């Protein structure tokens, strides 16, 4: 089965306010999707609702993952099904090193013991690719990291946990050109025909080196247009004006 994520008529609120207003989205294995849209259109809400962040309430619609309804699963259960989210502002977790956290999370998501030696080698290799200083592996997770290092650490987590679907929520925001290039390199390293990526972004720089299959424009809680990668270029030039009625 190629179908990974299928969202039908999704409505979601934060408090009394409706943010998602009948959203539909399908993602298959091997695909790279991009969601763009003006501020407040519901992009980050979508990522959070897929992972069932309790801040949001789903009021209607369905989210299926590999054919299974995941509407009512808890966040950790959804993560164990193979969905990963890279956070816009990753949390700082004192008291646990990056290495120990990766080991712990790998063990929790797979339910398998981690083969330590091989695991460490793989992480060291990935850190090198992401141009991360090796000393970060022993630092407390995200504590005192710069914005760029936090985002790279999110990508490192993605590469380590090997989810089936990676959702990147504004991973490129606030990054300089070099850091954006490294992040998109990480996404390229991750992507293969058995997984998929959903990139939520404001900008188009991150997309330059990626093979994007679909770009969706999200306006006012609904996807109003879906096209191929060329749509991103068009948005960069003309903005969202034509999609806002």
């Amino acid at each position, binding site marked *: 089965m190629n179908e990974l994520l299928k969202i039908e008529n999704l409505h979601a609120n934060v408090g009394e306010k409706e943010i998602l207003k009948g959203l539909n989205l399908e993602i298959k294995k091997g695909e790279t999707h991009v969601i763009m849209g003006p501020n407040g259109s519901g992009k980050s809400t979508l990522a959070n609702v897929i992972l069932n962040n309790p*801040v949001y309430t789903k009021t209607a619609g369905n989210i299926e993952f590999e054919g299974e309804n995941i509407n009512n699963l808890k966040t*950790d259960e*959804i*993560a164990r099904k193979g969905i990963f989210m890279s956070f816009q502002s990753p949390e700082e977790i004192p008291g646990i090193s990056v290495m120990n956290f990766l080991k712990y999370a790998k063990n*929790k998501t797979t339910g398998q013991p981690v083969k330590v030696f091989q695991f460490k080698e793989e992480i060291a290799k990935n850190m090198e690719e992401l141009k991360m200083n090796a000393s970060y592996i022993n630092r407390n997770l995200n504590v005192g990291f710069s914005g760029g290092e936090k985002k790279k650490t999110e990508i490192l987590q993605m590469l380590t946990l090997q989810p089936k679907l990676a959702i990147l929520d504004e991973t490129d925001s606030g990054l300089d050109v070099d850091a954006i290039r490294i992040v998109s390199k990480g996404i390229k390293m991750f992507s293969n025909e058995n997984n998929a990526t959903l990139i939520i972004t404001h900008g188009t720089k991150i997309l330059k080196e990626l093979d994007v299959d679909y770009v969706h424009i999200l306006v006012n809680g609904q996807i109003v247009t879906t096209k191929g990668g060329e749509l991103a270029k068009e948005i960069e030039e003309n903005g969202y004006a034509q999609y806002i009625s």
Partner: protein
Amino acid sequence: MKTDIEEINRNIYDIKNKDEYDFKIKKGLTKEIIEEISKQKNDPEWMREIRLKALETYNKLELPTWGPDLSELNMDDIATYVRPKTKMTDNWDDVPDDIKNTFDRLGIPEAEKRSLAGVGAQYDSEVVYHSMKKELLEQGVIYTDMESAVRDYPEIVKEHFMKCVPMSNHKFVALHAAVWSGGSFVYVPKGVKVEIPLQSYFRLNSPESGQFEHTLIIVEEGASLHFIEGCSAPKYNKVNLHAGCVELYVKDNAYLRYSTIENWSKNMMNLNTKRAIVGKNAQIDWVSGSFGSHISMLYPMSVLNGEGAKTEYTGISFAGKNQNLDTGFKVIHNAPNTSSVVNSKSISKNGGICTYRALTKINENAKGSKCSVSCESLMLDDISRSDTIPVNDIRNDDIEFSHEAKIGKISDKTIFYLMSRGISEEDAKAMIVRGFAYPISKELPVEYAVEMNNLINLELEGSIG
């Protein structure tokens, strides 16, 4: 079900031995009882007089009118002296099996082999084991039980005993001076640096009894020491009392680090008094972890008497159901250019109460002194409580003073972040609490840091509603 979990949680601490003893004084507090304790302990006359005077003082003093309610404590129900069925030894093999097994389970002999320069172990009212590495002995370091110190070093003890903490300080100090038994005496001669810690472990096995150990440490000029104390007891249904007293003398240019991990059972009233007098350019650092007890009132105090004296207090307390932990730190800046740094954290859950109560006094003469206080509290649910009650008495302008207090709950954002990595809510909370405690746990000796993390995990098990 909940109760079962909590019982299992404390596993190694809760294994109680039969209440066997060589001698147990009858319950209560009378002149006859004090005389009898004094006789049983072969006190010299001067010590007998101190005890009797202390009893008079005790009878005159009132219970504190602030802090946790102590009305559950009835001295008529407490036996103040319980002598275990053994004599003190420096050879583990000579310690009776049931007592030895208790300390084995707590990892004491293992820790001695691995990372300590000396160990003392007290069981009920008496020290049953004491030993120290030969090198320290050769350097003139003394580490022994208090009774031996009274016998062998009467002049030093007389000069210092109940002088740092006067018996009139409060009712339970007076009680302590009247019935004290056991504890440790350490003397580090001038210039001697004790590189590896000494550790005393206090275990109260006997029900409806009290432990009143006295710790007296003198670190002479330019010398240094790290002293660790650990305490635990199995749980009984009736109240047990701990009213120890710690007197520390840190002379000019000396350094002392005093670490405590207290894991008393949850029927314990822990009314302990600790104080250090600190000389010129000397430093006392307190590291304190309070996990156990039903009620604790514990406020270590540093008296910075010498110019340039320093103190740091690093403390954490963790209060669960039926626990009221009233802890804090007192400092008196009594000389120019002295400094104090406080870093206190507390965690409360299941209706537990944590209070940080502090006194900072900066005298007229303490020009150029610095004091910085940071208190953080974490409440794991809506029924638990946390409070910060600082009293600042500052009597000169030429100082730097900062106080920062934060009371918070576990962030839902952080829980969501961790859960998005496949970590369950319960594990996520434990990870956050460990992270909160981390700045303190990293200051603890490594075995204790591990023990503290285990305690946090166990305490949080099944606590997610």
